[in-house]
């Protein structure tokens, strides 16, 4: 593989996000303004927004979710940044991961010195079945969706292939959800920031308050096996294997590396970027890996000149619990077939050797699809700078990684971040 390098270094000097959740009455532009203000407040030495030269905004489908197209120019307007060029990037759930890459390329090319990267999605206006239908358009609307595939269905099918080949069980995936809820419980921006134990306690309290029979579970795994509490969505994926329907926005400020010291003494350098595409699932040789994610990772590692062993933590695209298991293999943290076992053994927990999704991941933090990739970067920014509060990972976090997936792996984008 040819090793590609950026012509000019790129640094993150600010990052912010709205809370992720369900926010009736707020639109994407309101959420984006919150993210923008959070980003601005995070710039250590201050930011004059007039210095921003361009916007790249990841957004999957405001067209359907809010009947609003052409969203990038609106975000430029609401953040006071017209007449700067504003480009919407759409690659399904990888939209803002790819927007980040486009922003990086804009600076590395020499065209811009400062770029604002954003991600936005407002999904909760629609009822669940219409959200399901809207997400489905990221699949193949001629040959996959009409025969009955859904997004939970695609990943559930990968899970059956994975279980068949490697002997994993539905419990393997449940443990990933447990871990991500444990992390999300320490993240104030998370949509479902509760541990599964806390979820169980709330359900018991509610039953008591309403005078209903009190549900009884032996432990968290017993709760997760209860089809009333944790219904099957697409077997073996149950409700607590699936990321929620969310609203949210995130914003990241990129500058040329040689200018970073004007904004902070503690920038996060983008040391690697990779992106790849893939065919529909039925046209793939292997259903237990996302080859585009593996390829994007290899590109990013080669550019950064580092190996998976060097990376201290990662935010990966856990739209479904099986996706996290496969992701940890595709980014090279564990050999094929070992990701599930590694999760079960706690090796990906916050205090494990390879902390994965310390934010709570898409599962617990929320998955406003077009904002999720940028949201991952916000977590890595906070963790690497030691600003992650209660969920701060200990040790020197000099290298971090994000892995963001569109649809069922038809787009994958990976970034590597370095703190010098």
């Amino acid at each position, binding site marked *: 593989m040819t090793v590609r390098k950026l012509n000019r270094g790129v640094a993150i000097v600010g990052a912010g996000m709205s809370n992720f959740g369900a926010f009736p009455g707020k639109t994407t532009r309101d959420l984006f303004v919150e993210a923008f203000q959070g980003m601005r407040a995070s710039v250590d030495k201050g930011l004059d927004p007039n210095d921003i030269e361009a916007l790249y905004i990841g957004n999957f489908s405001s067209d359907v979710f809010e009947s609003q197209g052409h969203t990038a120019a609106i975000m430029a307007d609401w953040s006071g940044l017209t007449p700067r060029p504003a480009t919407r990037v759409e690659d399904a759930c990888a939209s803002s991961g790819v927007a980040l890459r486009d922003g990086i390329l804009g600076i590395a090319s020499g065209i811009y010195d400062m770029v604002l990267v954003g991600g936005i999605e407002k999904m909760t206006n629609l009822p669940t079945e219409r959200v399901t239908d809207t997400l*489905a358009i990221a699949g193949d609307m001629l040959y996959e969706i009409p*025969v*009955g595939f*859904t997004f939970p*269905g695609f990943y559930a*099918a*990968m899970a*059956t292939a994975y279980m068949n080949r490697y002997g994993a069980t539905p419990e393997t995936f449940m443990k990933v959800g447990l871990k991500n809820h444990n992390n999300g419980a320490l993240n104030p921006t998370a949509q479902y920031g509760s541990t599964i134990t806390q979820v169980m306690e709330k359900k018991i309290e509610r039953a008591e308050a309403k005078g209903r029979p009190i549900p009884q579970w032996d432990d968290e795994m017993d709760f997760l096996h209860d089809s009333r509490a944790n219904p099957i969505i697409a*077997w073996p994926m149950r409700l607590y294997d699936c990321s929620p329907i969310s609203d949210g926005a995130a914003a990241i400020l990129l500058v040329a590396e040689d200018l970073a010291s004007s904004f902070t003494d503690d920038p996060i350098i983008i040391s690697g970027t990779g992106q790849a595409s893939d065919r529909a*699932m039925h046209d793939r040789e292997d259903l237990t890996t996302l080859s585009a994610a593996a390829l994007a990772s290899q590109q990013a590692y080669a550019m950064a000149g580092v190996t998976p062993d060097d990376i201290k933590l990662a935010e990966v695209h856990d739209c479904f619990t099986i996706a996290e298991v496969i992701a940890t293999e595709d980014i090279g943290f564990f050999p094929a077939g070992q990701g599930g076992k590694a999760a079960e053994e706690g090796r990906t927990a916050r205090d494990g050797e390879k902390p994965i999704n310390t934010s709570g991941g898409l599962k617990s933090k929320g998955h406003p699809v077009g904002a999720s990739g940028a949201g991952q970067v916000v977590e890595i920014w906070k963790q690497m700078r030691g600003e992650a509060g209660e969920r701060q990972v200990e040790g020197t976090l000099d290298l971090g990684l994000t892995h963001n997936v569109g649809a069922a792996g038809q787009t994958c984008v990976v970034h590597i971040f370095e703190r010098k």
Partner: protein
Amino acid sequence: MSDAVFTESAYTGKLNEHKLMGTRCTSCGSLFLPPRPMCADCYDGSMEWVELPTTGTIEAFTSVFIGPTAMIEAGYDRKNPYCVGIVKLDEGPAISAQILGVDPTHPESINVGTKVKATFVERGDGEGQRTFLAFQADDA
């Protein structure tokens, strides 16, 4: 319509005749299902229709309890889930399709590797009626 048109509507037309047809590149021999108008492997050859084997094996599957609108309209719901999966045709490509002859309410009883045979399902009424490819599991 000329038979050298390799579109989705041409493919659906053949499904309506209960034929499972893909395309083959006349240069490199690559098979494509669904059909494609250009060889994505060698770019060289022209395409020709080829009838594909109707037997295959389940590579991956799921039992869908929360379906899309179209499947809800077809009568499926939480109490009546359906199985959809990826079937690798014997000596041919793989395709996404509904899988019949299994018990979607007990998905743990369905197995990767199960032999299946193509079948054709009619769905919709009047102008909206369409034939869908599906697969039937062997009687176990």
